[in-house]
């Protein structure tokens, strides 16, 4: 198999897209991705579908895929570094879902999606342990999922308020991508959470990062909370993007020469509320990512 930088040529340019997950639109005022595409085609050129296999795909995701519109598959239920998580039943269901969505690639937070086994009440999301020993098991999981699905698998930096380990998050993900020979999904809001938690500048670690592997970016709103004098960010996917996230997004777009897609995560907000956010993100995009669908 050619190396990832050679395989990059096979990945489509998706441009600006929007995310969803099972039942996201049940909430009053939540975003209707198809309506957004109808009203603002440039803002919803693809749909990133969050998938928890036990829930499956909702009608919105199925309808989008049935129209042949582009998608990506964002997993919400696999601990990549845990070989027992790749059981036959789960993998079969992933392959069936991939056959429906025909996603451009798979992606998802490379962290702890559940404690214990995969069972009711045990879902959560924690970042990986940022130590060299955690790189190889994570890379092996990425390779296993890529081989099982025949699609590229892009690990994403997860959110968190408690980060364990001494590596910088960007260094950990650069090492993981190198070991798995894969691309990366950089979540700008999640990275801002890490930098804040470590007391670092928003762009700390940027100089040595593997920018040529960054294929996708996420941009989302968040809220700063304080608990007992401890400030932390809730990744609420609202429309108020924090200044640090914008700083990271602008700098990342400048550096990520192989960028193919940007997702604005705002699935719980009405169209009128999200349009200004999409316009602001679109203004940052290079021309090659801005073309009409």
């Amino acid at each position, binding site marked *: 198999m050619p190396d990832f930088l050679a395989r990059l040529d096979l990945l489509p340019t998706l441009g600006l897209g929007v995310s969803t997950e099972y039942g996201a639109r049940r909430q009053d005022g939540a975003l209707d991705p198809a309506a957004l595409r109808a009203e603002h085609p440039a803002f919803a050129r693809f749909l990133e579908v969050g998938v928890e296999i*036990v829930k499956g795909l909702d009608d919105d995701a199925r309808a989008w895929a049935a129209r042949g519109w582009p998608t990506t598959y964002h997993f919400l239920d696999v601990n990549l570094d845990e070989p027992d998580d790749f059981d036959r039943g789960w993998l079969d269901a992933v392959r069936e879902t991939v056959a429906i969505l025909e996603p451009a690639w798979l992606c998802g937070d490379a962290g702890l999606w559940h*404690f214990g*086994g995969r069972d*009711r*009440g045990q879902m959560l999301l*924690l970042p990986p342990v940022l*130590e060299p*020993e955690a790189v190889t098991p994570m890379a092996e999981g990425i390779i296993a999922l890529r081989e099982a699905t025949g699609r590229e698998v892009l690990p994403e930096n997860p959110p968190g308020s*408690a980060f364990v380990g001494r590596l910088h998050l960007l260094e950990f993900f650069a090492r993981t991508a190198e070991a798995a020979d894969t691309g990366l999904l950089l979540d700008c809001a999640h990275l801002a959470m890490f930098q804040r938690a470590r007391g670092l500048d928003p762009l700390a670690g940027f100089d040595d990062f593997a920018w040529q592997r960054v294929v996708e970016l996420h941009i989302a709103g968040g809220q700063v909370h304080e608990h007992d004098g*401890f400030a932390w960010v809730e990744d609420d996917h609202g429309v108020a993007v924090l200044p640090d996230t914008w700083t990271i997004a602008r700098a990342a777009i400048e550096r990520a020469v192989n960028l193919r897609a940007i997702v604005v995560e705002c699935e719980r907000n009405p169209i009128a509320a999200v349009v200004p956010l999409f316009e602001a993100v679109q203004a940052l995009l290079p021309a090659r990512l801005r073309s009409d669908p």
Partner: protein
Amino acid sequence: MSELDPRRVQQALVCMLFDPDYAARVRGREPLPELSERERELLRELDPRALATDRMRRARALHVILDEYPVSAAMLGIDVVDRFFSSPEFRACVFDRGSMALDFGERWLGDRTAGVGAIEAGLARARRELGRERLESTQKLRRAPGVIPLQVPDGTLAWYRRARERLGPDPLQALTKLRKPWPHKPPRRGRQHLLIEPQVDGTLGIATASEPLVELLRAAEDPRPRAELASVAIELGADSHDADELLDDLLRDKLLCEW
């Protein structure tokens, strides 16, 4: 430098997120056999306040337990049920890739709620087995997924049904209004044999069953060769000429399956 298993560190972190007392023990000096010194050092570096940002984490998990064990919760009180998340059984679930609901019922609950806990744990197990992937058939026999044989104190089923009825159509709401644990005690004497069984409408039924049937299905917990299971049936009282036919009947009734 001592060893570092990233998964073990993450598992300990989960326990710290659920249980401030465990977090304090990790930060302290008393021995913790599940963690190496290097692993513990990494966890000690965390700001304790960073572990308390999701104040609903434990409540969400408790909700699942209350939903699956409503009668046991009414008997014990919610505060007592909540202690599960600070228990060695919960930590074993986290470290051993367990099921929280099953470990609550089958390990932590023990005899605290007598046969009622056994019924609710059986129902929890049956729900999970129905969704479980089936391995390649080995030509052996075992109890069918979702079929759970139980032995409980005599009169437990009727007691459980009355208690369940008393909690009404929304047991969780009833539990939140409960100011103290029920004073009523479930039966503790004698023996009753029960079978939890999937129904055609997808629900789970519970009914009394004969002791030999319950014992035979308990003997078929793990896949066994047909001849071996037939011998068990004979030991339990089946006629030696009818044992094979009995196994065929149980296969037809979907109480046993080839596995």
